[in-house]
């Protein structure tokens, strides 16, 4: 039976992991390579790396880091942040990334999804979407790490992206991110039921029950979290044990 995935996310700035909440009061969360190795030992199902500065000057630092991490992990590894072109994707794959996540650039230029999916295959292209419930019951897409609002309806954008070839959706609820009050259950369920590709829920993990809810009620295929794992408020082995006890199929 296909297992539900538990995915730690490393937000990267200047070669370090930072606690990435709303891009303010960035707190150092450690050496990304050491964290990656710890997560592999703890049976994380995948790793996600997001370059939150994503500036040109930082690009070579990122490539080097991606290569270093890829060399010591034996699980799937997704990298995102500032990806705009075939060349960007090629460079990251060459360093050992398995999947690439794209976000703002895809909203500004939706044909980017089509182009990348055709060039690299849908399995390689993860569409990341930052979403906010600006009007109750209506979710909108935000750009540039949540700093720019749009009037784009999140659900129709995600459907369009899947039609264009996105192979997975990384859905971050800005209303929940950093709150530790639980994932966006209703939104995740709506998205998961409206597309044919896996949905990774992100934002709001605070305790193990939250993961259970997002899998059971939210119908997520995977759940992603950062600080609760970095600071060991929840460890992945205890989380998986808990999920398994609650009849959620996980890889143990």
């Amino acid at each position, binding site marked *: 039976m296909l*297992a539900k995935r538990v995915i730690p996310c490393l937000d990267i700035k200047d070669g370090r992991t930072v606690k990435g909440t709303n891009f303010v009061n960035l707190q150092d969360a450690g050496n990304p390579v050491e964290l990656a190795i710890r997560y592999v030992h703890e049976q994380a*199902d995948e790793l996600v790396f997001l370059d939150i500065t994503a500036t040109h000057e930082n690009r070579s630092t990122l490539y080097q880091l991606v290569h270093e991490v*890829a060399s010591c992990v*034996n699980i799937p590894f997704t990298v995102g942040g500032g990806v705009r072109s075939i060349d960007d994707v090629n460079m990251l794959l060459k360093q050992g990334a398995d999947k690439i996540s794209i976000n703002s650039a895809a909203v500004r230029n939706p044909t980017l999804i089509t182009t990348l999916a055709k060039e690299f295959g849908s399995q390689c292209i993860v569409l990341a979407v930052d979403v906010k419930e600006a009007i109750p019951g209506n979710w909108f897409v935000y750009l540039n790490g949540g700093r720019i609002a749009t009037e784009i309806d999140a659900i129709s954008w995600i459907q369009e992206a899947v039609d264009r070839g996105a192979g997975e959706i990384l859905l971050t609820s800005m209303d929940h991110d950093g709150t530790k009050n639980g994932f966006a259950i209703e939104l995740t369920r709506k998205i998961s039921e409206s597309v*044919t590709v896996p949905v990774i829920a992100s934002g709001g993990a605070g305790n193990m029950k939250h993961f259970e809810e997002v899998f059971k009620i939210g119908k997520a295929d995977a759940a992603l979290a950062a600080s609760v794992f970095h600071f060991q408020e929840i460890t992945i082995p205890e989380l998986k044990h808990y999920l398994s006890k609650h009849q959620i199929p996980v*890889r143990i």
Partner: protein
Amino acid sequence: MKTVIIQYNAGNITSVKIALERLGVSYTLSNEAEIIQQADRVIFPGVGEASSAMKYLQERNLDLVIRSLKQPVLGICLGMQLLCRYSEEGNTQCLGIIPTDVKKFNNQLKVPQIGWNTINTLNDSIFNNIPENAFVYYVHGYYVQKNDYTIATTTYGLDYSAAIRKEKFWGVQFHPEKSAQIGEQILKNFLSFS
């Protein structure tokens, strides 16, 4: 002992290279007939689309080269599917080394299947030291039915082949290079074959 990874247009092979490096195994990446033929064993990876991959192989006569190999060959994911007779993906005549066909998932589940699923009813030395129902990483939208050459099964809406073998051609649907220690053990087992 020379291990050669066949280099062709099917997606990203960096992760296979890195997996071998982690195991301390030296390898050569090649699309040249002579180098592939002289290998002690051959890895035939692949993430991509069947018809364009076959076209690439045929244009370089690599289809003939692969069919003629007598040393151990490991097809991974699309590589495994290309070892078969026919694929519904792009209506493609494949290499025809293992007489079975590749079908599209046609069920209510999400396609492609992405994530960790088990390998069951293990029945081959490539699974030495691997427990029944171990988890490995899959990414695929097409599958090989259970058949006479099946050496492991898995379940996603239906039971199908997680791995197949005919003589010295092995095929695995999952990605051993991305399947943690279980995948490393499977690669080590293959690398011990001669």
